[in-house]
């Protein structure tokens, strides 16, 4: 009788706490906690043991273990394993900027260079193809990272660098530097970098000039050598009247 009463009490309390727990879960999701869905897809990716560990509240430790394995695979230049492990790591810890950034860096910088220098592949066309595929993998990591962390500037900056250095796409690079600069906690140089990249874009020189000039007018602290060089280049290209140009630096 007593146990039956306890069971009824537990069910009644359960009914009371249910909306509270649901409400808390919704707030957690809104504030970017509990970003991982525990489903069969994750179970297949992690294996039995990893899944159980992740399920028991040790998701971060499992992610770290896999990250260390990825680090070892990188030292051995086992690129497919690095890719696979980083996919698991980022699935487990989607709020960790570091993991997305490292995954993208390994793919777009390290694996792509290794693919280009692959002596086992004599055909240049195939080496270039492999290199482009690694660029795309790096880009994919960063885009998914941004989707999971739209409020933090670091991955926008990483994607901007990837567009700048790997795709030589200055327009997209400028766009992502600007997106990063608009977020709280972004370093001051993001705004400058966005304008630099825009200055390389055909047809957008006027816009770039105005942005660089605005930064220049903000004060002495912003008048860095690259900024002055780009401004002078644009002044010549746009034919800015002499009286509106910035002064030459004293020798």
């Amino acid at each position, binding site marked *: 009788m007593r146990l039956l009463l306890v069971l009824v009490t537990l069910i009644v309390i359960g009914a009371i706490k249910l909306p*509270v*727990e649901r409400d808390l879960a919704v*707030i957690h999701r809104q504030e*970017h*906690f509990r970003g991982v869905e*525990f489903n069969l897809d994750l179970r297949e990716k992690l294996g039995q043991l990893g899944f159980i560990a992740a399920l028991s509240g040790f998701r971060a430790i499992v992610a*770290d273990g896999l*990250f260390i394995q990825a680090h070892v695979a990188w030292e051995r230049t086992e690129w497919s394993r690095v890719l696979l492990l980083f996919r698991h790591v980022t699935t487990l*810890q989607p709020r960790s900027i570091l993991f997305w950034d490292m995954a993208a860096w390994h793919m777009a910088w390290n694996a792509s260079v290794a693919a280009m220098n692959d002596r086992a592949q004599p055909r240049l066309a195939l080496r270039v193809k492999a290199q482009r595929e690694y660029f795309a993998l790096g880009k994919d990591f960063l885009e998914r990272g941004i989707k999971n962390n739209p409020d933090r500037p670091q991955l926008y900056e990483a994607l901007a660098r990837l567009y700048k250095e790997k795709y030589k796409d200055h327009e997209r690079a400028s766009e992502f530097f600007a997106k990063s600069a608009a977020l709280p906690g972004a370093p001051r140089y993001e705004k400058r970098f966005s304008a630099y990249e825009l200055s390389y874009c055909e047809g957008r020189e006027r816009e770039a000039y105005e942005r660089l000039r605005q930064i220049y007018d903000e004060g002495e602290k912003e008048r860095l050598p690259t900024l002055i060089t780009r401004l002078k280049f644009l002044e010549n290209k746009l034919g800015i009247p002499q009286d509106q140009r910035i002064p030459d630096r004293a020798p």
Partner: protein
Amino acid sequence: MSNETVVAARHRGVSFSRVLAITVNTLTELTRLKVFYVLLVFALLLIGSSIFMAQFTFQQEFQILKDISLGAMSIFTSLLAIIATARLIPQDIEDRTVYTILAKPVPRFEYLLGKIGGVLLLLAISTVVMSAAFLAVLYIREQSVLHMTLRQMSSAPREQVDDTLRAVRSSGLNLDLFPGIIIIYLKACLLAALTLFVSTFATTNIFTIVVMAFIYFIGHLQATAREYWLQEHSSGWITHVFLAIVALLFPDLQAFNLVDDIVAGTAISLGVFLKTAILGAFYTTIYTLLAVFVFYGKEL
């Protein structure tokens, strides 16, 4: 007023001194079991992982150090909560201590409150010691990285140095870790109270530990079951009833796993912290009360 009435009046109601005596006694008993060796293992884990991580960058090193330390704190406090509590009542029955205590004018609820108080105190001491060790290691590593960075960047522009130092500080020791640690403690308290409740109707401590292991896993899945139960309509009624039972009877332990995301850089708001803390305190109180209720009906 007769002498008997005076004695009865003196022992009526709640006596905090009696509860405190049982609490201190329980803590002493648990300490004699050398449970604090767990802290030694924790310290070794911290030192070991710090040495191992020398080859990583400071961000990787700090993140892994925090993950391992907070994960280990969560494992050790949960294990301590379950194992220490599971043996309390069966051991007292076996040693016949419970008869000696309850033969005196000590109400059963005071006995249980004292017992759970002892475990919660043990958990608090363990959490404080582990946190102190973890924060000390993290602080030392952060200071060492800061000094190294200053030395390496001595000729760099001031703005760059400031940016780098800011990056080091933001990935090292920060205030967001403290609410995470408190939530770990509250989760352990919840588990201790639940173990006490299970142990009031269990016959052996092995049974209690096995049941608690199942509850631990089910509790981490409860949120998934709850969402499936409340949202899905295509599954059969047996599945529906099963999911309802899981959602209603078990606590949502995933709600207390905030440290993973805190380490990853998500700041915990005061609202989330308070709601989670209140939920933890609510569960601890309810399970303790249920344990008292069952214990009153137990034949001793």
